């Protein structure tokens, strides 16, 4: 009888969660910055989501999936490209997460300014540190509201607001600084 329940569970999963696969893949693509890795991560995240489908309660399936995709991305990055996980230089993150215990931080502005090859906004976004990048992607491209971003990224709303502000300020300075503001 367990397998009957299992089959029902799978059908429900496919109709509730899989419609958000594009959104999940897009987030994975922004965080891994690579097509093949994004596909691997998205698939692993969906299987993870299926395993923990019982923890899903009626409601925001998109945010629920994005949260798992994000978690899977960071696990993957930690395993394959730990150097990508540099912490922000000043942020007291009560949740800690993957950024807290690492060594010294980076200066976001210096990071963007130093890359003279980055003239396009999408490339600038890719160059942002992951916590700022995911905030701006979830807000501007996934069009989530603050509460949903807080839910997906596991930080308080105040932290979401300050990360968005920092991401935008850095993008504007880098964008304006290179005189390509009008070219876009």
């Amino acid at each position: 009888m367990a397998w009957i329940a299992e089959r029902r569970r799978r059908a429900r999963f496919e109709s509730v969660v899989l419609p958000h696969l594009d959104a999940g893949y897009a987030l994975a693509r922004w965080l891994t910055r690579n097509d093949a890795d994004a596909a691997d991560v998205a698939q692993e995240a969906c299987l993870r989501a299926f395993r923990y489908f019982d923890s899903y309660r009626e409601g925001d399936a998109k945010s629920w999936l994005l949260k798992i995709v994000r978690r899977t991305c960071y696990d993957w990055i930690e395993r394959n490209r730990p150097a990508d996980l540099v912490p922000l230089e000043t942020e007291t993150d009560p949740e800690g997460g993957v950024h807290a215990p690492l060594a010294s931080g980076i200066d976001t502005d210096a990071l963007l300014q130093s890359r003279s090859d980055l003239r396009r906004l999408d490339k600038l976004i890719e160059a942002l540190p992951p916590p700022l990048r995911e905030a701006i992607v979830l807000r501007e491209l996934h069009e989530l509201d603050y509460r949903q971003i807080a839910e997906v990224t596991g930080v308080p709303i105040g932290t979401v607001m300050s990360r968005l502000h920092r991401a935008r300020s850095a993008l504007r300075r880098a964008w304006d600084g290179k005189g390509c503001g009008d070219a876009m």
Partner: protein
Amino acid sequence: MEKDVVMQCEAVRPRLEAYLDGELAEAERALLRDHLAGCGDCGPEAAALERLRDGIRQSAPIYRAPENLRSQIRFALRREAGAGAPAALRAAGWLAYAASILLAVVVGSGGTFLMLGDRQEDAIASQAIDSHLRSLLGTHLTDVASSDQHTVKPWFAGRSELSPPAVDLSAEGFPLVGGRLDLIAGKPVPALVYKRREHVINVFVLPASKDDLDKTLTRRGYTVCHWDEGDLGFWAVTDAAPSELTDFERVFRAATGG
């Protein structure tokens, strides 16, 4: 007049992005809208932020999952779900025939059984949370305090029929702090105690349940993760984030040979 505008600007600036993100309540939104229309500093600032947003949305590629990814995932789900099907159903000959009769019986009463199973599971989860809370409130977190599995594991021998695998997972960020005997469903069961930063993870060890589904439940703000491994059923409870507990399950199972 001049001073009024300056005062207002100071109140407007911190709210400007929330305003553009549509996060302000109507009353506040109207105040900002009026201010932006008349202010020579804040108006252009808002316009610059809007240009940035438009720029991002125009220049950012729209990523879509590749076509074959969707079908790959469906296939993988089917395989994953299929792993739980009773072996008898996959067997040939009379066994399959016997199974089909059994199946008919099961289908007839299936609903009741499934519900009963869920309720039993909930009852254990609920008691696991109670025990978890007790362990945090009192001074009785551990009977044997040690991060050494060669101390913790033998301690349970003679105190419980079940012999839990007490592995230290400090390297993965989940140090073992010890073990104790606790009560679930009126029976003494081993509890392994781990830490995740300031959070405690209690792992209660019971005989394996019959269905081998992994479950993660959230009740009363606590997360309970359940999985079976051989003859043992594990019930891990924590007040840390659910994702931490699923990570814990992963490293625990990896370390105990699951």
